[in-house]
């Protein structure tokens, strides 16, 4: 299993969507950090390098990051179908469940890798503003970008890292959902589009207040404003992950190739 996992992780860097995502994730913080209309849109001026990661996350968590994660995770399956290598692997003494679990693990790890990269790019983009003590807020704590008083670097680091960790975790079920749809549809584009359609429908379901706290899309804001206690959010996301992964394995076990 470890050989299989290492092999699948190694393939990640070969995906076209990963390279495209890397480009977007590098450019995005730089564009936002130095965009002339930031004050008009957000009502504040950047004063610290710690605020750039917040700005990058706030602007991308609703659509851009789920989109990039969904595309890559669907491509994890789709590339094997396009190359014709899926049957080749399944003819080896590797069970279908083992192979798909390796893919699901890669899909689970990918949001953390992507957000770590995004954070590094954001910090690089914020280097101009420096990382010393500043007045305001990181944008990732309770006080937002303003009103946190004097922020010391250690506290700022803690807020930024925690927010990125929670954000990455909340994106994991989206990756697993993309794998599930790619397995059902046997197609990368179809898998990514079906995932996005599902997320859009979930966003529209906010008209049912009773359902809203349980929606996957609601948890995408947990890095800054968790809808429920963090422990509960973590458990709910884990439940989504388990459900999507189990469904993908069940479907894949009975697929004809």
């Amino acid at each position, binding site marked *: 299993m470890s050989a299989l996992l290492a092999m699948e992780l190694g393939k990640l860097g070969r995906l076209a969507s990963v390279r495209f995502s890397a480009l977007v994730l590098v450019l995005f913080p730089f564009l936002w950090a130095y965009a002339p209309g930031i004050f008009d849109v957000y009502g504040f001026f950047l004063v610290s390098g710690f605020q750039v990661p917040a700005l990058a996350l706030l602007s991308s968590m609703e659509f851009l990051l789920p989109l990039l994660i969904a595309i890559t995770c669907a491509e994890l399956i789709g590339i094997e179908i396009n190359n014709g290598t899926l049957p080749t692997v399944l003819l080896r003494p*590797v069970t279908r469940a083992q192979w798909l679990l390796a893919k699901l693990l890669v899909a689970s790890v990918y949001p953390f890798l992507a957000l770590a990269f995004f954070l590094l790019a954001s910090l690089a983009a914020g280097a101009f503003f420096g990382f010393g003590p500043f007045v305001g807020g990181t944008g990732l704590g309770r006080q937002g970008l303003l009103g946190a008083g004097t922020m010391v670097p250690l506290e700022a680091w803690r807020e930024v890292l925690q927010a990125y960790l929670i954000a990455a975790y909340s994106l994991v079920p989206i990756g697993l959902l993309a794998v599930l749809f790619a397995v059902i549809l046997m197609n990368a584009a179809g898998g990514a589009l079906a995932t996005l359609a599902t997320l859009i429908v979930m966003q529209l379901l906010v008209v049912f207040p009773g359902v809203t706290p349980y929606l996957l899309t609601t948890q995408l804001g947990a890095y800054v404003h968790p809808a429920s206690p963090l422990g509960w959010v973590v458990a709910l996301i884990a439940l989504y992950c388990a459900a999507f992964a189990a469904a993908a394995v069940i479907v894949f076990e009975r697929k*004809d190739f």
Partner: protein
Amino acid sequence: MQPAIETHALTKRYGSRPVVRELTFAVNPGEVFALVGPNGAGKTTVIRLVSGLAFPSSGSVRMLGHDPHETPSVRRRLGAVVEAPAAFYPYLSGRSNLVLHARLAGGVASSRVREVLDQVELGHAADRKVGVYSLGMRQRLGVAAALLTRPEVLILDEPASGMDPLSLHLVHRVLRDAASSGTAVLLSTHHLDEVVAYCSHVGIMEDGVLIDQIPLRDRGARMRALVDDVQSARLTLAAQPWVREVFVRGRDVVFTLEQPAAIDKVAGCLAGAGVALRELGDDSFDLRSYYRERVEAQRARRTSGDGRPRIAPGPPIVAEGTAGVDA
């Protein structure tokens, strides 16, 4: 002897449409079974069912005595290429692709990778990316990947597709060698002339039905005699203990000898019965013509009558103990 591959009433439907119907055949260790048939006959589906990539709608598949779905570990003893052309990661070299296969298979020495690359004459191109390989090179790499684990069962879907004559000859030689060392080989192909040279059985498929299974292994002992009275010749030869099987085909009497040396007795035996022998020689079997006849007959039967698939009766070729069909 336990067959290496065995199917019983194997059927596959997609929705209500059957693509493989009630297929029963067996491949023993050391045998080469070639599935031939028109495009869309169901050969690839059979290959995928037998290798465990697709699930039967009904019927069963056994590989080395195991159901490949219930016992995935049996695939340690399988080598297979089910894509034509064989599929590999294009950004990796031929060698790296095989190393990856070796890791998935487990327990394959690195020297074995070099060995199989040399076997299919790809040693010189081993470090080039597969993306720049020609179709024939990919196919040969596919055969190399299949041979990597010294499998007891080899399953290949059109292994010679897109190959030049030299590569074709090479792959057929490799498969023949594998069979002679005890590997059971199941392949699908359109190269009828070549497979006759080394296959032990040919199965003809049409519209999902295995319409004929032709054993070819004993063909060396089969003779053809041109005589003036075919019926008398048939009866005379059928009565001889050194003749295994005899039938009439047109103006010829075709018979199989128990021992090739018995050929010396044929002329005297027929002369004793008052039959004039005009010509005596090996019965060269034209699979291409036979295949065309059988497929066309099956199609005609399918499109006439009640439209249900039926297997058209054809003349037995070398099946032991059959009485044959008089022309």
